[in-house]
């Protein structure tokens, strides 16, 4: 085989104590469209940033055309033949497109030529970037990258927000690049695209490359999913089976009912219900509307249409306060958004409590202390850093965000990826807590980016794709089934 255009050897990167990449070997041959795959947090984005000069690797080497290179910055990477199109277009909103191009030293006429080749020459380059829709900005970013005539074009989830006809134009360019014996590194969550357009794929898991093969081959999809997940734990499945059996026998009443809720105007609408005493797991790839769905449910954002019923009565929240009064409370993924980082544990737990305690006049501190202490004990929060919530570890902060609602009282709990970035021990404490709350009669909606958790804590799973629930699965569903459904594909056997 000829010399690879790009070769990384044992590339590693850590951010403080968090290791993003352990050792990644990646080899892209000339004339190859190479897919880079991996679950959320596997290290894809970090690798792309290293390859395009945004970050420096701590260890390992990157070689272009056989020569080891040190990429000093985005400009340097482009000069060495690596041109990226990032997930978020690197265009400055307050400038016109032409000004943006001049900034990178790109000739607008050349970009216009590339756009014409994509049949997009109607785009007005004197428009300010902020006035253009995102799909066209991606295409512009792509056209700009093409002008550098890179040896390796790096496309980071470019098709994620593109309508099909624009995606097809991207694939046409990938084909053109291949025909010129140049290469493309293609990142996408859409396995169908990967199978159809890529010659090779490399799967990352936990910061390592775990497999490289031809994705289009027979059973390629199953192989990709297996490589992304690693070995699934069998014990989880057994627990889930017991729970599935138990859940079907006792049907709680519907606590939270969502009907045709429009997350975005063009979506089909989300419908599901959560019953008292159950944990409904929600699985989705990044960017399927889950963030906004939770914001809508918690009263932070208005839905574009549809209906939310809480205990049978419609909830039209104008403010989170309205939702909280109806017992619907949110634990967001960004803990510091929910907490008062510079205030002590006690005040953090008591803050939502003040809604109920008294409106005017002094607060009954004795009662407050009692309720707070109960919550702290129940959650076994480590109170050594009691003076400032921001000094707590991530796990303890997360317990605190749940604990706030324990003291204040709630009936429906919305958990958005509550275990992100938390150590395994605390994760299990949180799982136990969630189960305990549900068994105590609460309705819990749990979005998780870790599919394992569906089996570990949930009674049912709903899969969100493109702003709609595409599948409802039992907790015993395998992770590969969940992942398949999350990609918007049909799950064959359950």
């Amino acid at each position, binding site marked *: 085989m000829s010399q690879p255009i790009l070769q990384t050897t044992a590339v590693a990167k850590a951010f403080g104590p968090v290791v993003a990449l352990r050792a990644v070997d990646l080899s892209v041959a000339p004339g190859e469209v190479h897919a880079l795959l991996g679950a959320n947090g596997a290290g894809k984005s970090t690798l792309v940033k290293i390859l395009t000069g*945004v970050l420096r690797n701590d260890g390992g080497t990157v070689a272009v055309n056989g020569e080891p290179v040190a990429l000093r*910055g*985005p*400009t340097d990477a*482009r000069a060495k033949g690596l041109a990226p199109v*990032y997930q*978020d*277009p*690197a*265009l*400055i*909103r*307050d*400038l016109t497109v032409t*000004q*943006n191009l*001049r*900034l*990178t*030293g790109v000739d607008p006429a050349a970009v216009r030529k590339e756009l014409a080749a994509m049949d*997009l020459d*109607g*785009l*007005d380059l*004197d*428009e*300010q970037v902020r*006035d*253009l*829709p995102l*799909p*066209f900005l991606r295409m512009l970013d792509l056209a700009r990258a093409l002008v550098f005539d890179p040896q390796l074009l790096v496309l980071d989830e470019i098709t994620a927000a593109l*309508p*099909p*006809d*624009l995606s*097809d134009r991207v694939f046409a360019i990938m084909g053109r690049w291949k025909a010129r014996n140049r290469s493309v590194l293609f990142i996408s969550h859409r396995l*169908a695209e990967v199978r*159809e357009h890529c010659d090779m794929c490399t799967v990352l898991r936990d910061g390592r490359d775990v497999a490289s093969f031809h994705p289009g081959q027979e059973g390629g999809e199953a192989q990709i999913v297996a490589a992304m997940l690693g070995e699934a734990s069998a014990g989880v499945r057994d627990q889930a089976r017991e729970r599935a059996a138990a859940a079907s026998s006792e049907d709680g009443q519907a606590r939270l009912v969502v009907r045709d809720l429009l997350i975005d105007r063009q979506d089909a609408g989300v419908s599901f219900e959560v019953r008292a005493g159950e944990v409904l797991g929600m699985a989705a790839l990044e960017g399927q509307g889950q963030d906004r769905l939770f914001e809508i449910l918690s009263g932070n954002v208005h839905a574009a249409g549809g209906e939310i019923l809480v205990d049978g009565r419609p909830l039209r929240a104008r403010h989170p306060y309205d939702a909280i009064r109806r017992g619907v409370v949110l634990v967001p993924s960004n803990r510091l958004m929910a907490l008062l980082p510079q205030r002590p544990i006690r005040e953090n737990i008591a803050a939502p409590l003040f809604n109920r305690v008294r409106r005017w006049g002094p607060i009954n501190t004795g009662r407050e202390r009692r309720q707070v202490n109960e919550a702290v004990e129940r959650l076994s929060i480590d109170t050594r850093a009691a003076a400032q919530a921001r000094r707590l570890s991530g796990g303890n902060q997360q317990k605190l965000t749940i604990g706030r609602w324990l003291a204040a009282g709630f009936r429906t709990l919305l958990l958005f990826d509550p275990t992100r970035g938390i150590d395994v021990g605390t994760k299990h404490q949180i799982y136990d807590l969630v189960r305990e709350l549900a068994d105590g009669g609460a309705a819990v909606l749990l979005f998780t980016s870790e599919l394992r958790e569906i089996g570990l804590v949930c009674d049912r799973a709903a899969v969100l794709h493109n702003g709609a629930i595409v599948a409802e699965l039992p907790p015993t569903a395998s992770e590969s089934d969940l992942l398949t459904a999350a990609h918007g594909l049909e799950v064959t056997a359950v």
Partner: protein
Amino acid sequence: MTATPQAEVHTPLPRPSSRLERFARRQGWVVGVAVLLAALVGWRASQIPAFGAFELRGIIAGTMTLALLAMAQTVIVVSGGIDLSVGAMMVLTNCIAARLMLDRGLGTVALVAVAVVVVAMVLSGLIGTVIVVSGVPDIVVTLAASFTLAGLALIVLDGPGGGTNLRFQELLVGDFDQPLPALAWLAGVFLAVWVPFKRSRLGIATYAVGSDRAAAFLSGLNVARSRVIAYVLGGFFSGMAGLVTTAFTGSGEPRASIGATATLTSVAAVVLGGVSLLGGSGTLLGPVLAAFCLALIAPLMLGLGWDPNYAEVARGVIIIVVVMVGGLLQIPRRLR
């Protein structure tokens, strides 16, 4: 999947906007401020029976300092910073100039003027460098710098004093009924310094780092250098403001409160002129026009026979109302 033809799906290109729409969108605020200024000038003219060159010179030369400080503040705010030391910089350059220009010929005075502006650019560049290197927020560093500069001004000149050349005064701010020199200097600085800067790669970079530092970095810009350059250019305008003060008053005045008030008024002009305090957007013309609007309020109140103390109250109310109405007018755009 491959079999389904996707020819039916066709994403339409965004509708191109007309020149007029684009002008309204980008320059609408400046036009609005210009209309406000024209109305205020007309009002002022109607108050005085013989409104002529003398009054015009008074308004233009008297507001030139503030207009230049508004320019200094605008450049820095556009780059994503804020400079609370522009007023102190003006006071310091005023004191240096007044001390060195006392009883000198025009040649020496011109040389001093150039040197003083260079000193302001160097000092301001130094402040910018400290901000970029230390990572301490702009507001903290420039506030601290304003104390240092105000102290230096008192060392240069321990009380009101100094002087300058009469010919220099006339050349910069005009004789009593000569509004043209002041106007020419303002227009000259604008056309000879700002317009070429804004069109250059450096100028675009200033807007870029103010708008989105991460995207600017990804575009291959030297973010730190662009930010320091904005401070250097700001120093140029502040230094010019110091020179104009020297020419207008004919002396040096080291009182720190002058600088503090001037700084805050420059921020007000920037806001009223339609420059986003978040950086990345706005023009230089808006704040200059806004500076004149702000300066006209006190004489207008006086003309109405009101207590001039109400002028300050009116100034605050006008800023809030104008910015609020402007914000309401821009809501449809944000919702798109």
